[in-house]
């Protein structure tokens, strides 16, 4: 297999480029071409790796050739590499959008530094997705949370400093909690490699139920803070609303998802379905997920700032993902993974179009958006498509993820949660539809119905249109992604 080393290259290339960038001359052109070449190259490496995995199957990569119980291990299966592919695809789109938006939002000398941070973010996300070692996961998690704090606070404004400080404090609490939980797991099992831990846990979980419950409680709370599970979401709205728009897209569409993926790993690979169900952890996840679905939407209704509203809507959508996860069944996992992909695409489209509105008009308030559809038709059409997806109107990918989730819920005998999904969809409609109606049907006080092309550079609207096309294609042909997910799930769950 030619691509055995590619996961390692995928992790070290962004790290190397991130430290080389500050040394170069800070020409915008130079940095742009280096960053886009790097991410493009990484995408092709990941694609090649993914193709080869189909014929060769999953494999473990031991660093330094040490045995699994001694050294650090990457475990590369089809699902992992699919997620990596998705991360790189979305990053490429967001980065090509950001080349036009970032000079507008940051000072000129920060341009190179911003991309250093983005590459470090990619480095830690890919590391977290690939790793099969609990402590290594913790290390990548720390890098990820510090880097995300930095891309929030890079804008020198009071709101950003406050939001990023809050995020830093809460995510440090989360990290410490996770570390504590990992220590408990290590105490019971004596291993850090996920497979080794799993082997031991399967035989001893009835002997040490309290200890393991405590461990999983700590770990899930920590990951819950970082992935904005409902009552622990308080940092998210400020952070995502005040960051530059490409950063918001990164944080909301990818970073949070990586933490959720880490949670999959903990629940399915480390603890195992039997123990999670035996100790009733899945019930707790379901309840918090349902609360998040409803309350996230309710909070979003009250918002006046467009980016804050989108941030609260993320809390609700993360509730859906956790709902699928809490079922602890193969279908639930598939539905929740599908929603990771479709929410990633939708939220990126929404944040990028909100960013374009702010870029072109400087308006952030929802009440100022009357008639904006005539001044920025492309942006608002993309926004509407993604918002329809969020509501769950057929033809957009969000509808399909709700269907899959509903089917999984019926299969798992939880009809009450199905009613909550309907309620949450209705609440989504309550806050998304007025924006669309105001944009296209109300009169703009400044210019009267003169339809124009968006005053945006090409670099900004092409990525948004690509996202909208992806959303509709997946909406009509969900099998494109679902088949791959279902085909790769068994290999993932065997672990």
């Amino acid at each position, binding site marked *: 297999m030619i691509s055995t080393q590619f996961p390692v290259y995928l992790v*070290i290339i962004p790290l190397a480029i991130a430290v080389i960038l500050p*040394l170069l001359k800070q020409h915008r052109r130079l940095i742009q071409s280096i960053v886009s070449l790097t991410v493009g190259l990484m995408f092709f490496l990941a694609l090649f790796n993914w193709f080869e995995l189909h014929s060769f199957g999953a494999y473990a990569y031991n660093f330094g*050739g040490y045995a699994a119980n001694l050294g650090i291990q990457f475990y590369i299966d089809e699902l992992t590499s699919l997620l990596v592919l998705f991360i790189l695809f979305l990053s490429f789109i967001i980065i090509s959008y950001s080349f036009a938006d970032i000079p507008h939002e940051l000072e000129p000398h920060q341009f190179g530094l911003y991309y250093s941070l983005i590459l470090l973010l990619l480095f830690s996300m890919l590391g977290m997705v690939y790793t099969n070692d609990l402590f290594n996961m913790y290390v990548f998690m720390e890098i990820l949370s510090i880097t995300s704090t930095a891309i929030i606070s890079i804008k020198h404004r009071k709101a950003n400093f406050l939001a990023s400080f809050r995020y830093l404090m809460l995510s440090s609490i989360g990290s410490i909690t996770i570390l504590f939980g990992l220590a408990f797991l290590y105490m019971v099992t004596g291993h850090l490699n996920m497979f080794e831990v799993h082997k031991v846990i399967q035989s001893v979980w009835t002997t040490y139920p309290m200890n393991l419950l405590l461990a999983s409680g700590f770990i899930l709370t920590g990951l819950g803070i970082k992935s904005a599970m409902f009552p622990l979401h308080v940092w998210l709205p400020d952070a995502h609303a005040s960051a530059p728009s490409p950063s918001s897209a990164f944080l909301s569409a990818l970073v949070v998802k990586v933490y959720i993926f880490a949670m999959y790993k903990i629940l399915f690979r480390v603890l195992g379905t039997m123990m999670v169900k035996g100790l009733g952890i899945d019930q707790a996840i379901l309840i918090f997920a349902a609360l998040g679905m409803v309350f996230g939407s309710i909070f979003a209704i009250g918002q006046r700032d467009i980016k804050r509203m989108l941030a609260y809507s993320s809390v609700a959508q993360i509730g859906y993902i956790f709902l699928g996860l809490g079922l602890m069944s193969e279908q639930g996992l598939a539905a929740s993974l599908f929603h990771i992909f479709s929410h990633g695409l939708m939220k990126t489209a929404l944040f990028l179009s909100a960013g374009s509105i702010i870029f072109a008009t400087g308006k952030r308030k929802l009440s100022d958006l009357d008639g904006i559809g005539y001044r920025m038709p492309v942006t608002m059409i993309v926004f509407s498509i993604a918002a329809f997806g969020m509501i769950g109107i057929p033809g957009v990918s969000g509808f399909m993820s709700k269907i899959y989730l509903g089917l999984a819920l019926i299969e798992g005998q939880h009809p009450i949660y199905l009613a909550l999904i309907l309620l949450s969809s209705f609440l989504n409609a309550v806050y998304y539809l007025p924006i669309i109606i105001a944009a296209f049907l109300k009169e703009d006080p400044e210019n009267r119905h003169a339809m124009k092309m968006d005053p945006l550079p090409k670099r900004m609207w092409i990525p948004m249109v690509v996202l909208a096309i992806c959303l509709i294609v997946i909406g009509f042909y969900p099998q494109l992604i679902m088949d791959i997910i279902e085909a790769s799930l068994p290999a993932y769950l065997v672990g």
Partner: protein
Amino acid sequence: MNDLIVKTIVRWVIPFIQLFGVYVVFYGHVSFGGGFSGGALIGASLILYAITFGLKASKKMVPHKRSQWMESLGILWYIALGLVGIYTSAYFLGNKAAGFYMGEAGQLLSAGIIPLLTIGIGVKVASTMITLFQKLVEENEDV
């Protein structure tokens, strides 16, 4: 700080701190410490210099440009050593299998890749500490 006693003592102490830091870095694989602790010692000596003689003198000794290069080169050195492992033994960061000189356990020249890695880590940590300190002082002066 303009105090003759402090300045004289610091001038005497710094070489010893740095020597000890270098010792901790080089003997990381056979005794306590390693790249991080040794690098922190060297960085602390540079910070001590900055505190006693002021930001200007410190910037003359460690200009920002230089510490930036050191920081990046520390990481790149680590990555490059890891890549050597891929080309000779098929594993990133491969040690014995990659053909590094293993020597005799307990000797200075032993343990293959590990002392080489600690040197990179030491350089990175020392330069990061002094850069962070200079940056913090600068930010304070701007306000």
